[in-house]
């Protein structure tokens, strides 16, 4: 790690101010940024921690029935909250290990948009709205490819607003070493539509499997996607799984999501 200046603002406006300085970077739970800095692969001059900003933490139910989760809310807090719908609870309680869950935050995960992270699948599947210090961004517009998002420099995710699906499920097939998603499928069934988001699999990062969505809109059953073949090109191929295997797993895990949705 290189030396850096550390700031720990208590309010959002203090944080935004601090982020204006040269080479300043926001620090959420630090589960990606800190290891990267330790390997000297990142070297921000100033690190602005968001963890002391109480207005960015917590979970509440909105009047329209949706749920807002503060950007600084940890995975452990999401997993333990009774307002959260089943798929999201499963997702949060299976991220990493207890240490990761007690530090890592939903805002950090979404802003980083790791192609194998779990939260992007939930946000995209449920059609969440990402609320930042300056605007609201729909999940469909937010994710723009591996580690790429619609966020501007210094823009902070204050909260994430999730419509609550009537049925949901998150099915993760773990990469054996890292326990990140080798393929993760988040399924959200609303009154009018079913949305299926896939993480871990694509070279473009999280994506909606629209073909499966259409079929499930017609007939919400495992059988409706049995004959689909997902094209392996564009899938990630690495030492853990070939493109073909990932494409296959997308279908297997989607069927499991349909079967287990609750």
């Amino acid at each position, binding site marked *: 790690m290189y*030396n850096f200046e550390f700031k720990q603002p208590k309010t959002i406006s203090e944080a935004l101010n601090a982020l204006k300085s040269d080479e300043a970077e926001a620090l959420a739970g630090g589960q990606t940024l800190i290891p990267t800095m330790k390997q000297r692969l990142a070297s921000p001059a100033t690190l602005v921690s968001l963890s002391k900003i109480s207005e960015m933490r917590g979970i509440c139910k909105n009047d329209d029935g949706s749920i807002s989760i503060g950007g600084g809310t940890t995975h452990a807090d999401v997993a333990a909250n009774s307002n959260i719908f089943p798929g999201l609870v499963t997702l949060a309680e299976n991220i990493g290990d207890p240490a990761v869950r007690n530090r890592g935050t939903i805002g950090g995960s979404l802003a980083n948009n790791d192609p194998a992270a779990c939260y992007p699948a939930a946000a995209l599947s449920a059609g969440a709205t990402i609320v930042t210090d300056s605007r609201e961004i729909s999940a469909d517009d937010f994710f723009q490819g591996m580690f790429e998002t619609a966020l501007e420099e210094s823009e902070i995710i204050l909260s994430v607003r999730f419509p609550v699906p009537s049925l949901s499920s998150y099915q993760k097939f773990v990469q054996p070493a890292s326990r990140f998603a080798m393929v993760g499928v988040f399924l959200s069934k609303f009154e009018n539509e079913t949305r299926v988001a896939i993480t871990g699999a694509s070279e473009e990062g999280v994506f909606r499997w629209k073909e499966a969505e259409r079929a499930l809109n017609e007939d919400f059953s495992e059988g409706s996607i049995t004959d689909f073949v997902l094209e392996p090109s564009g899938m990630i191929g690495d*030492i*853990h*799984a*070939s493109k073909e295997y990932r494409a*296959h797993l997308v279908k*297997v895990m989607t069927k499991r999501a349909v079967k287990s949705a609750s």
Partner: protein
Amino acid sequence: MPKDSGIGAATRRREDARFLLGSGRYSDDIVLLNQTYAVFARSEVANGIIKTINTSEAEKMPGVIAVFTGDDFVDVGGNPAGWLINSRDGEPMKEPKRPVLAHGKVRHVGDAYAAVIAETEQQARDAAEKINADIMELPAIIDMTSALSGSNYVHDEIETNQCFDWGWIEDNREATDNAIKNAHHVTTLELTNNRLVPNAMEPRCSIADYNAANDDYTLYTTSQNPHLTRLLISAFVLGIPENKLTVVSPDVGGGFGSKIYHYGEEALVLAAAKRIKRPVRWTASRSESFMTDAHGRDHVTKIELALDKDNNFLAFRTETMANVGAYLSNFSTVTPTILHGTLMAGNYSVPNIYVNVKAVFTNTAPVDAYRGAGRPEATYSLERVIDKAALELNLDPIALRRQNFIKSDQFPYVTAAGLNYDVGDYDAIMDRLEHHADIKGFAERKKISEKQGKLRGFGVNSYIEACGIAPSNLIGTLGARVGLYDAATIRVNATGNISVMVGAHSHGQGHETAFPQIVADMLGVDPNNVEIVHGDTSKIPFGMGTYGSRSLAVCGSAIVRGIEKIIAKGKKIAAHMMESTEDNVDFEDGVFSVRGTNKTVSFGDVALKAYIPHNFPIEDIEPGLEETAFYDPQNFTYPAGAYACEVEVDPNTGKVSIERFAAADDFGNIINPMIVEGQVHGGLAQGIGQALLEGCVYNDDGQLISGSYMDYTMPRAADLPSFVVDHTVQTPSTDNPLGVKGCGEAGAIGSPPTVVNAVINALRSAGHDITHIDMPLTPARVWAAMNN
């Protein structure tokens, strides 16, 4: 009846209290006054010519005290291989120099070419980044087959990438070839024994302290064998006189073989400490551990098994390429040869065996002994090809093994691979295994699995290993450059408590508990009054350390011999005290008595008399009560066992889960059954890790792809079933006074083929025509095999 102390008692490990409470004292915990920090500049390419190294900018960085490069070590020796292997044609192996720091060329990713010494680690790291090395990258030599056929060499001076081409036993080659040519059936299998990264929990750490007043050195280092490290540094590398170098290995957090060896970092900190006259320390980062700890396994093998029409084994023939990496690590030449080829009879009566091993240099980290060391590779090849033969001939795999077992009345049995198995009862072990495996219940369990959409398979193996490598005079003729005895000093203190200084080193094995059980049993004292001292060359006699499951069989035997000397001397003192003669004195349960009388003196009184010799037979014997014994065994010990496992395979994903696992082992006599059980559990976890999870991957450019826990899968508790462990079959070793055999590696040796056999069985039962999948059997590989 289980005892509650002494030999055979399941005494809780006394060392665990400090380990579990975080009060262990590891090398990195040691803080020395005025200490400085070393950080290494390491190659980012697998193969390259060092054109220039400019250190001037680094030297000007804040806090920098000294910078070293390979130029600083051209006049010192190389780190040698501990075993000379000759090729089939009699040519000695190729032994290129392994320098302290790379010189002229870098040969693997992580190869250190420079080191910075600075006031803080951070300063040293900053400065190391300013070392300006002009390294011209060359094509990497990674694949062993291309390495052997190509003209691009890891070491240009030897003009080949082949270290040796070894035949065992060369005189058996023709007979083996003929047996295979004329056999009723021959089963052939090509397989890879996957490369593993040792991943000891504690990374390597070395701290050097130079005392200019006496011109002597102390090296604190994470070693499994401090005397061997000292010998290598003194006699081969730096030339520091042995009596001017103390090597201390305090608590060491796991080794699994990787800390047997002397590494360049140890020599660097010693040389640096002398130059700057201050202590120099270095602790590996986890990334450095991945790149530079000696890796394990990495064999590519073709094995053939010939059978007659009655399914009797006629011959095993193997051709193996063994990767030794970029440099010869200390045991790298003995591991794929003497520790592998000699075991190719397994547990079987087979008249013809021939083993050919080609050791190959590649641009990868050195490969050396890793838990089991050669024996897992032998067992895997044998037990996989036997299972394949059973498939091809439609035979029950257990019956085929039993039919060919060496029978209990055939011992001692000299195998066609040259070992003399002293004792064993493989059928009795298999009986115990079949009992625990509940083979009759398998069909019912399979039905239940199938109802849940899972395939279920059953796999079995049997294994033999050779522990406590010996005797020195024999291994000398086989190329060993060291002896393989061990030593113990028994120091009975004046107040009757006992310090035992041992050559073995404990880094997880529980010596501090097990060794006192032997002493307590023999001397009739409370084991809590016995203290074990290890890991410090200034305190212990010259021993060879701990590896190859040797500590109890070899060092434990030295303890026995030492105590026998203590008792003999005690009898002389007791005879004087009781006005008798030593041949009339008996010793039992801590009491000396004159036979046929009621005269007794306690062990404690004798100890006191030895140190306060006011009324003492000073004309006949010396005061004091301290004895040293060196013990050189006459043979290996031969633990054996049989393992069974049931797996479920998810046909949709290829994911394997182990549902049941039973291990039946014969370890001979057992000192502490709880420690034995723990050792078996750990070994099984490592073996299952190899079978299902672990795989070290270099890409074609020689980059270490699996260089962190993000990509290298370690076994976790949830990956393992609850083990059934049985060691009730005990045929005591006939070659050591304790009748013990060794248990540290068994689990890692026997489990990989068991798991793979079970997975193949599961897949075949679902109609897949699969006879082999290379480890690790990851979901991706199993799915690919099912879907071609």
